[in-house]
């Protein structure tokens, strides 16, 4: 099992859908793909859509935290949606919810960002 990252540009929002397993081995791909899209693309905000993310460990937290800093430094917001219970627990344990807002699905994530921008 590896990881697929699907990136979609929606207005000024970059939607990143992660499918599979996010660990140390697969974190680099996510990092480079997102880094490039944030740098080159016109998006200000990022939605991390995690419905089909089956596994994540602290390496995933690291890459998410890294992108959060990148987005924030450009004045954008990063939100997450469709978080399964085990990923939810990791976010809780690491205090990531203090900086990332959580939404039920992509739609409510998008509308929350449209209010912001």
């Amino acid at each position: 099992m590896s990881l697929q990252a699907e990136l979609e540009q929606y207005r000024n929002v970059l939607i990143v859908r992660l499918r599979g397993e996010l660990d140390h081995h697969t974190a680099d791909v996510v990092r480079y793909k997102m880094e490039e899209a944030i740098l080159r693309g016109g998006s200000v905000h990022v939605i991390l859509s995690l419905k089909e993310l089956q596994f994540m460990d602290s390496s995933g937290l690291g890459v998410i935290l890294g992108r959060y800093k990148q987005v924030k430094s450009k004045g954008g917001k990063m939100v997450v949606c469709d978080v399964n219970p085990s990923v939810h627990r990791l976010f809780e344990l690491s205090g990531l919810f203090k900086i990332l807002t959580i939404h039920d699905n992509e739609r409510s994530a998008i509308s929350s960002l449209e209010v912001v921008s």
Partner: protein
Amino acid sequence: MNGMNEMTLSFSARSENEAFARVAVAAFVSQLDPTLEELNDLKTAVSEAVTNAIIHGYESDESCKVTIEATIEGDCVSITVSDNGRGIEDLELARQPLFTSKPELERSGMGFTIMENFMDRFEVSSLMGGGTRVMMLKRIESKKALYN
């Protein structure tokens, strides 16, 4: 289940083996009929320990080997992940949440915290130049208990 059931696994310190290691341990433990949550806890803890061995213990030298020993005894599973790598200089500091010796690699510094939280017992011993050994134990509240 009576008596002990053991397994040992030794594999190259390559990042693609992180998934292999956690899936192998999960398959071994599945005979205790764990819940999905218990299985996920175990997989996450194993993933953290193996990743630490690869990144920190061996500094990504793929010619080195990581060893996992797992023992099932009653409804408990104990897992030891060991490497013969460089060792941890300051264990106290390494166990602090959010501490990482490799911030440039975007490490979150949550590995030990996750292992401690996801398992029932957790111990780590390390010797500079002599490697690191992580010992973890988890009791599987077998789903069978529900029917008794």
